[in-house]
């Protein structure tokens, strides 16, 4: 047998054949080649055209712990949605691999990105002051917000002082964190999301389920239903081109009449005071360049020292997120257009506190690419909304508890800790190790169910006493008796509901060893 025979290859194809669409509607290049840039799928993936109600996210009950497993189970009960979601995100992961493997210095770039970020975070005060000074020198109004409420109050004041009533914005996870839209709604400011996915979610009154692809959990039929109800489109037309065009046509009037425009921030450059956004739609540029008032919301961890460092991050960001070499638009906003005001709001919202958490501060390196979500086998089968938090998937598991330990106490357990997230992270956050570390913290702070901890205590008590352990296994060494209590550590048989139980062997290894290798040895 040749060596090649045993080198594993990846079989072409999908694991859910039902989502292979019979026809391909993606754009073609000038040469007629099928295109797959931006967040496009590398092959047609489409949920079968059978109406299946969209599964909704986790139930939120104040600060009570999110039941991610319950929401995930409902997502799995919608197999058409689940299969399309899984294949679509796995496809992004595969595109990411192809893109990364095309760059010999990939791992070196990740290491550089990580080092630039850890350096900046450990000198964050210095770089924030440098950024502020540069921005002010550029004629920008700089604000500081301690938390989400502070951010919302500051933006509202800016809008009110200009008599602004309508605001168009591009996607920003930070403003999701701040509950920005709801606050503006309550204060009579009309906010329009201009990213297609984000707009779909806004119209459906649902949070984004993914940091890069906010509506990735929805099928085209779901979108058609939402648009028919809210934009008056034809409910029977679920053609993706028709739906996207309808959104373009209905959003543009808002862009033209908006009193203010807002963007988030992918990178903030300390030396120049610039805000950098990366989008595929160009909607950050519309939000920043059309309305007569310009606002950028910036998480303080977004700072990087110099323009040249963008050379590292821009090469990593879109390739990690989507497998595309760069986003369609990489925009650098440094100073106001003539005659208008430009505001930048630097938002803390728990970041400075997280900086002091020895095991968790490096989660601040995150550049929100979503690669960890795309690769996460649990996320792909649960949907982002099952996490009931602004940040879902692996990065969410380690960030969310910093916002609310009780509410998000369950999330670090929604992982198999397989480690793939850590390997795809472009800034080398040790995500799965932080998930592990969070579990310990949550136990120490009594944030896990007493039943669970009780089971572990019982297991620990027996496993540390050989005689008790052997007795628990059973006098006849019948292994099956072990299963509920030891192998699966659960008084309820959740194993057997969906899987066959292992057969009890004739005897345990222990008994075999005693019988075959210890003849004559006194026990």
């Amino acid at each position, binding site marked *: 047998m040749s060596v090649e025979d045993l080198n594993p290859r990846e079989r072409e194809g999908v694991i859910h054949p039902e989502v292979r669409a019979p026809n391909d509607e*993606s*754009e073609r*290049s000038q*040469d007629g*080649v099928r*295109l797959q*840039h931006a*967040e*496009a799928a590398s092959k047609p993936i*489409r949920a079968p055209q059978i109406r299946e109600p969209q599964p909704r996210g986790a139930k939120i009950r104040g600060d009570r712990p999110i039941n991610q497993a319950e929401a995930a189970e409902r997502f799995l009960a919608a197999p058409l949605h689940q299969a399309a979601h899984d294949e*679509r995100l796995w496809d992004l992961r595969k595109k990411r691999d192809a893109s990364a493997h095309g*760059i010999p210095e990939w791992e070196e770039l990740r290491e550089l990105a990580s*080092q630039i970020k*850890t*350096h900046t*975070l*450990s000198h*964050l*005060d210095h770089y*924030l002051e440098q950024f502020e000074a540069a921005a002010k020198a*550029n004629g920008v109004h700089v604000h*500081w*917000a*301690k938390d989400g409420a502070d951010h919302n109050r500051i933006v509202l004041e800016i809008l009110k002082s200009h008599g602004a009533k309508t605001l168009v914005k591009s996607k920003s996870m930070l403003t999701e964190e701040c509950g920005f839209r709801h606050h503006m709604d309550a204060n009579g400011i009309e906010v329009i999301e201009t990213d*297609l996915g984000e707009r779909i979610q806004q119209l459906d009154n649902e949070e984004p389920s993914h940091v890069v*692809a*906010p*509506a990735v959990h929805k099928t*085209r039929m779901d979108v058609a239903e939402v648009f028919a109800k809210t934009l008056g489109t034809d409910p029977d037309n679920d053609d993706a*081109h028709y739906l*996207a065009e309808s959104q373009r046509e209905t959003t*543009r009037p808002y862009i033209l009449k908006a009193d203010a425009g807002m963007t988030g921030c992918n990178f903030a450059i300390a030396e*120049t005071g610039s805000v950098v956004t990366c989008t*595929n*739609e*160009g909607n950050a*540029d519309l939000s920043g360049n*059309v309305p007569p008032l310009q606002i950028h919301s910036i998480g*303080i961890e977004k700072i990087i*020292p110099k*323009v*040249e*460092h*963008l*050379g*590292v991050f821009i090469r990593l960001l879109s390739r990690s997120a989507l497998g595309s070499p*760069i986003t*369609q*638009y*990489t*925009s*650098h*906003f*440094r*100073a106001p*257009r003539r005659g208008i005001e430009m505001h930048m709001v630097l938002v*803390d919202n728990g970041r*400075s506190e997280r*900086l*002091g958490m020895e095991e968790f501060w490096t989660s601040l390196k995150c550049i929100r690419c979503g690669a960890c979500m795309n690769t996460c086998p649990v996320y792909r089968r649960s949907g982002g909304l099952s996490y009931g938090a602004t940040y879902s998937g692996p990065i969410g598991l380690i960030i969310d508890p910093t916002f609310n330990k009780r509410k998000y106490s369950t999330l670090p357990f929604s992982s198999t800790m397989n480690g793939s997230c850590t390997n795809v992270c472009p800034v080398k956050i040790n995500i799965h190790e932080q998930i592990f570390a969070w579990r310990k913290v949550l136990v120490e702070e009594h944030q896990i169910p007493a039943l669970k901890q009780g089971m572990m205590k019982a297991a620990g008590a027996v496993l540390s006493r050989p005689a008790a352990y052997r007795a628990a296994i059973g006098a006849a060494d019948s292994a099956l008796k072990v299963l509920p209590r030891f192998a699966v550590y659960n008084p309820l048989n959740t194993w057997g509901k969906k899987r066959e139980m292992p057969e009890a062997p004739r005897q345990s290894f222990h008994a075999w060893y005693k019988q075959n290798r210890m003849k004559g040895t006194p026990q």
Partner: protein
Amino acid sequence: MSARDAILAEIRRNRPAGDFPLPEVPLFAPLIGDDLVVEFGERLKRMGGRVAHPEASDIFAAVRERLDGAKVVASAVPELTGNRDLRAVRYPQEVEDVDVAVVRAVFGIAETGSVLFTQDQLIVNAVAYLAQHLVVLLDPADILPNVQAAYRRPEFGRSAYAVLHTGPSATADIEGVLIHGAQGVRSLTVVMQPKTA
């Protein structure tokens, strides 16, 4: 204490222990062939952009049909006279009816097929997004090998607005179906045309 001072104080109190030096960023070898024009064009096409070469009789031969069919053409280049004077525009909203905008790029990037504009090339920034189609003139001599080389250029530090366009506005937010013209231009065509002295 102001929010600013409170945040900075908290950051100082929570500074991570350890030494985290800022690394030197090397200029990696460009992962492209020697012919930057060809490499640029191939990559731009993969990003949904179009590439055109001027003909002796007509720089804009490849987009002539589009230009002729347009009601409103806004040109920011001396090579073409449009019918909307960008320098006379007072509010960005005025360019919303532009069918085709024509601008010159500062430079291109072969690694990605990107072109850079600043407010100086665009005259009205919004025209690069509100127009239905964008035609870009790029001097083949102005193509840089890779993204890192681009970020050593001075434009990012001194322009009020600098933007890399890589193909047209795109989305695939609905089931991964790629659609051009999500919010911005529906097409972007780069014409390889040297600058006039």
